């Protein structure tokens, strides 16, 4: 028995009654048994596969895939390899996740803030949005967007023509494609320069405000810079790009840029669904900022909008960011539901077609798991870095 009344350095060195040692023993035991379980599973899997003649190699990676994928961000055709099909899937997953996170954040903040509005109608609309959307399973919402909203659009021959050469039909949205000519780079440089000038002006303006208290018209200058400069460059370079318009030939539209309904349905579904959770996180974050802060800001004469923007939201962000990270991770993982509406994401292309055509179930599933893990860890690391910047600096 350890005499706990004695100071630690006087106690006997090793005793299973010592809390610390006991903890180490248990943890070591757990690690060992986990290792045994994992090894046993691995050995069993390998021996089963060998017995049944299933190859456990990654030879399939460079073999010709031989199937077609409709939406590809990177070069891919039916002669490409399974490896390229994998990257097509990864790119499509990243695209829908990134855009989904962006849209869900914007929509979620708007709705979260609206829920706290003093305008009764705005507040109730926001409340009903949250209550309806977050209580319906995501899969049903995806199927709804895909089957009930996008697919019933007219066939290509009866497309709805929108202004600007845009067509809407059950094959998606067909937009004019942009074609760049010589001089287009000048416009690109103008945009970069405008962004640099705008950033510099913000720094200058905040410097002026810190010294003299005078506020410069930052927003107006930004707008002028960011639209004016590229516009001047565009005219100066002699309109360096043109549009090619889609036209109906044979079955479908040729030319132009096509946004597939599978992509649209998945993006809308993920954004709308995740936004309802983001809204609740934002509302919670804002409500957690003490009322005294708002009252103090009002007492200083800050108008409502500025109070929200400069006093409440920055404090709320500290509370909002950690749960927001979880929602972003959920959105990324939920994008794998793409499989049910035919969007060619990683799971559909790689864990679907590639797995089936090659039969390399173990290898393909392992790679898929690793990809999701890596994407999630990177997202989470980025959000943690962001959180660190907003964390309360304690002095």
């Amino acid at each position, binding site marked *: 028995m350890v005499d706990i009344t004695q100071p630690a350095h006087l106690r006997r060195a090793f005793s299973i009654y010592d809390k610390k040692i006991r903890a180490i023993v*248990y943890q070591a035991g757990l690690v060992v048994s986990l290792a045994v379980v994992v090894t046993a599973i691995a050995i069993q899997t390998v021996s089963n596969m060998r017995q049944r003649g299933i190859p456990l190699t990654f030879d399939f990676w460079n073999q010709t895939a*031989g199937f077609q994928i409709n939406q590809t961000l990177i070069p891919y055709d*039916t002669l490409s390899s399974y490896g390229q099909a994998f990257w097509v899937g990864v790119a499509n997953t990243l695209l829908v996740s990134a855009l989904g996170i962006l849209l869900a954040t914007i929509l979620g903040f708007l709705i979260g803030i609206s829920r706290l509005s003093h305008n009764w109608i705005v507040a109730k609309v926001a409340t009903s949005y949250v209550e309806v959307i977050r209580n319906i399973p995501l899969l049903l919402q995806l199927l709804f967007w895909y089957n009930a909203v996008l697919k019933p659009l007219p066939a290509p021959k009866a497309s709805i023509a929108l202004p600007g050469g845009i067509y809407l039909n059950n094959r998606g949205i067909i937009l004019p494609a942009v074609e760049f000519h010589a001089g287009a780079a000048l416009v690109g440089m103008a945009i970069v320069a405008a962004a640099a000038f705008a950033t510099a002006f913000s720094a200058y303006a905040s410097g002026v405000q810190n010294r003299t208290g005078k506020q410069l018209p930052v927003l107006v200058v930004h707008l002028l810079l960011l639209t004016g400069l590229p516009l001047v460059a565009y005219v100066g370079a002699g309109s360096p790009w043109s549009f090619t318009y889609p036209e109906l030939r044979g079955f479908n539209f040729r030319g132009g840029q096509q946004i597939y309904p599978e992509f649209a349905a998945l993006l809308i579904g993920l954004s709308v669904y995740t936004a309802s959770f983001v809204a609740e996180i934002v509302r919670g974050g804002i409500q957690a900022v003490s009322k005294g802060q708002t009252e103090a800001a009002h007492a200083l004469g800050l108008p409502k909008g500025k109070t929200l923007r400069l006093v409440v939201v920055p404090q709320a962000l500290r509370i909002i960011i950690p749960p927001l990270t979880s929602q972003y991770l959920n959105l990324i993982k939920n994008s794998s539901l793409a499989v049910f509406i035919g969007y060619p994401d990683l799971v559909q292309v790689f864990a679907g077609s590639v797995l089936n055509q090659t039969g390399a179930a173990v290898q393909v599933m392992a790679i898929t798991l690793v990809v999701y893990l890596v994407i999630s860890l990177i997202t989470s690391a980025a959000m943690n870095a962001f959180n660190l910047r907003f964390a309360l600096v304690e002095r």
Partner: protein
Amino acid sequence: MRKIMTGVLGAALAAYASTVWAGTLDDVKAKGILTCGTNPATAGFSVPDNDGKWTGFVVDYCRAVAAGVLGDATKVKFIPLNAKDRFTALQSGEIDILAHNATWTSSRDTSLGIIFAGTYFYDGQGFMVRKSDNIKSAKDLDGASICVSQGTTTELNLADYFRSNGMTFSAVGFADEDAVIKAYEEGRCDVFSADTSSLNAARIRMANAGDSVVLPEIISKEPLGPAVRQGDDQWLNIAKWTLNVMLAAEEFGVTSKNVDEMKDSDNPNIRRLLGVEGSFGKDVGLGETWSQDIIKQVGNYSEIFERSIGKESPLKIERGVNALWNAGGLQYAPPIR
């Protein structure tokens, strides 16, 4: 805590021990039921009715295996599997036998850890289009968008066909055949491509069946057959010879109705088929009446063909290449002797 750990360890070891390979035949006999992986709902081939009872051509094949192995055609548990999951389910032991509309290909036969046990239906890939599009030939399909099932030979044949004819297409793939059919019906695609048997099966379930037409071109060979896991020769023999029993029974005129009288036949082929002479049953590892059970309880090849997908069914598929060898077709059972 320590108890939990020993529990985890023990469970792991038990799991390890229980996955040690035993013959499928022994497993099935011990369970008393055959687990058969089949299509989720393909009219004529495998469809559950309102009471959950499965009927159809490949369903009857499973029933025949159960009749031969367990002496009772009703002792089958059907596991509906889509094209994407079917081989994994067989590899992993979730099912004892796969009776799906799976095409027998070299890579599936050699690299998936499974092996095909014959061809119960000779099929080929075709195209279904809307009549209103006024297409007469698959050569007119340049630029079409095509709905397909993922992980099928359909997906691969399409790419080959369009490439060799210098045409383009846009594939819309779904994991689940129902989703493919739905997408075609709702106009997401111009074309629905699959084995012609599946096209016909899908069409009779469509609300506006008359609006679609199957194009004349058949772009591939699709021998559909049952598959079992590799490395169990006895079980492979059972799967193979169950089909051959049904074919031989048709050839020699043995039906579910006359099987008892046929035991007294003087034809040595029939006597060996029914186990009256020779040791057919014992050789495959089953009782001497196994072939009688199959024929009596399920029927010969012609009987299951006609009632599920042929003349007596809504599908009305002609025997065509699926006729017996001596009637101009490809179906042929090796001699039983």
